[in-house]
């Protein structure tokens, strides 16, 4: 049965699923990457994704438009990250504590909102999810076509975000400034530029991406919202940023490793190999710990990651 997995057809479908599953984490991780490059450790990623998943689902349900749902989810992510940015940048509250608070806040609020909007848990409605949009000609390429070019629109967007974020960080003025802030914010401050403003921008971008990523879980995947459905993907996003050494391309690799595991897990259950599902579901978390143990080879973290900047100190 294990050999079934190695067949080309099954492998292609595993890989296609891996690319699809990578979408939400990739969005979240890329947003987090930019925020961390600006020195802000957004531990509220999980909560922002959760809020995105919920709002995306709710807005799609009430408007009937998945696009509107995705937009609403991004807005929710932005609002939540605005609160986060205010707390950690302006008020300089401990970033880890604030992030955790935000996770609990998002978890409590979405659950309560869901319960009060739909009193009967059995009647929670589904939504029509995004369809695959095969790209003409490209999707006909054997093996590679179905993997890369027969996906949902959000997946294309996520994949395109990788070079976009790379271009932004390494070839735009603002990107250079953001990287500068993560390493030595004072260097920018003494040139007369606001550090806080750029950190806000980076965090809000991270929030929008996390909201979008979360929305992919409902709008592009399950069609239902379930309390705490993000189930650690936000945390995996943080691991991916670290494992990806704070660079977009390596973050993509890391995201694909995790999503491949996830896809493989689905396929293993599919072909009827008898492994307790708990073992399969726990795999990504075990792998995350192993990745963190081996990461010493990976790149350096931004020097000022997690340390609030104020001109008087340092």
């Amino acid at each position: 049965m294990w050999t079934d997995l190695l067949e080309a057809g099954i492998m292609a479908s595993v890989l296609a699923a891996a690319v699809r599953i990578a979408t939400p984490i990739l969005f979240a991780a890329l947003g987090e990457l930019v925020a961390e490059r600006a020195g802000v450790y957004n531990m509220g990623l999980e909560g922002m994704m959760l809020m995105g998943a919920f709002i995306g689902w709710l807005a799609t349900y009430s408007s009937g438009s998945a696009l509107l749902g995705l937009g609403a989810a991004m807005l929710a992510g932005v609002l939540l990250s605005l609160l986060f940015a205010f707390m950690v940048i302006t008020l300089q509250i401990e970033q880890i504590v604030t992030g955790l608070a935000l996770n609990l806040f998002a978890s409590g609020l979405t659950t309560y909102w869901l319960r009060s909007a739909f009193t009967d848990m059995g009647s929670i409605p589904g939504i029509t999810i995004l369809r695959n949009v095969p790209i003409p000609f490209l999707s006909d390429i054997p093996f590679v076509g179905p993997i890369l070019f027969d996906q949902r629109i959000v997946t294309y967007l996520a994949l395109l975000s990788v070079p976009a974020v790379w271009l932004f960080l390494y070839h735009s003025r603002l990107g250079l400034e953001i990287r500068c802030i993560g390493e030595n914010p004072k260097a920018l401050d003494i040139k007369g530029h606001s550090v806080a403003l750029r950190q806000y921008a980076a965090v809000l971008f991270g929030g929008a991406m996390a909201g979008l990523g979360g929305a992919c879980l409902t709008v592009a995947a399950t069609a239902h919202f379930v309390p705490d459905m993000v189930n650690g993907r936000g945390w995996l996003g943080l691991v991916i940023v670290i494992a990806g050494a704070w660079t977009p391309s390596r973050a993509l690799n890391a995201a694909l490793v995790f999503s491949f595991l996830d896809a493989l897990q689905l396929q293993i259950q599919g072909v009827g190999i008898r492994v307790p599902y708990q073992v399969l579901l726990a795999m990504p978390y075990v792998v995350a710990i192993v990745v963190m143990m081996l990461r010493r080879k990976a790149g350096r973290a931004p020097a000022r990651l997690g340390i609030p900047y104020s001109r008087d100190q340092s």
Partner: protein
Amino acid sequence: MTLLANSGWRIERRASRSSLALISALLAAGTGAILCCSLLFVAAGADPIAAFAALAKGSLGSVRAIADTLVRATPLILTGLATALAFRARLWNIGAEGQVFAGAMFAFWCQSAIGAAPAYIQIPVIVLGGLCGGALFGGLAGLLKARFQVDEVIATVMLNYIIAYVLSLLLQQGPWTEPGGFFEQTAIVPDEAKLPILIEKTRLHLGFVLALVLAAILHVVLHRSPLGYEIRAAGSNLRALQFQGVNAGRLVLVVFVLSGAVAGLAGAFELYGVQHRLKSGTLGGLGYTGIIIAILGQLSPRGVVIAALLFGALLNGSTLMQIKTGVPSALIYAIEAIILMFFLIAWAASRFRLRRLRHVD
């Protein structure tokens, strides 16, 4: 900011904070949270006053209600203490959640291993089992941090997910599954293994008193013992401690083991004092609420106990609130987080003050 600067006012950082600042931060957090909750009540179509009244009655309305409040507070005291202990050393142990599971599981394993025995043997075994289980699981996270430099937040969060699956695996057609049962749960534990009830006709069990005793012990440890000295020093400046030859890795491990042990006790008490059977899903959330409690309690054991009692009351009263007004009791989790956010903001804001600039021309 610029607007303020133009008009001759400036926001400045205070050099130090008074205890007045703490009180006003707490008041601001309380008021903000009440206002926010009222809004949520109205949004859910309920009368806020009725809802708050139900909340109060449900938590403090009778001896039984009060006893239940204390029962709900018991695990929160312990997870709050566990979190406070680690946070004091600036070790972000988010793993009280998983350590609760580990404590309950290890206690269950020990207790079922000794078989039939009188209560005076079973109860100490349960307490020790809870402590050891939590300590082992906390120690695992500490080891990852000290030996492999794995970020402790990520390590503990991942371990939280992993242990929940491990429990589910053991309960679902595993060795612990209730014979002939259909749910993911064990059989009811024997009567001798149930924690003694303190007041008749209530559910208040021995664990509450033990939790208070532990809080007192930890208070002394933190403020009077050399280990507590190291924990507090590590929280302020670990490097200075290392420069004096303190082994940071060992300290990390010790703190995680202690913190885990305290959290593990919460799991054992919930299992043998309240639920009387190991189920998947019913221990969830205790650890995360513990984080809120630790921060509200200013990372001091005394503060933790007070905050835990408050949250115990909230949780306990929410059931009646749901019956009387139809507001989902899930609101409580949102309220907890809202209180925390308001507190953090108010506390941080009390660091700043408005100062009028003299001699602005």
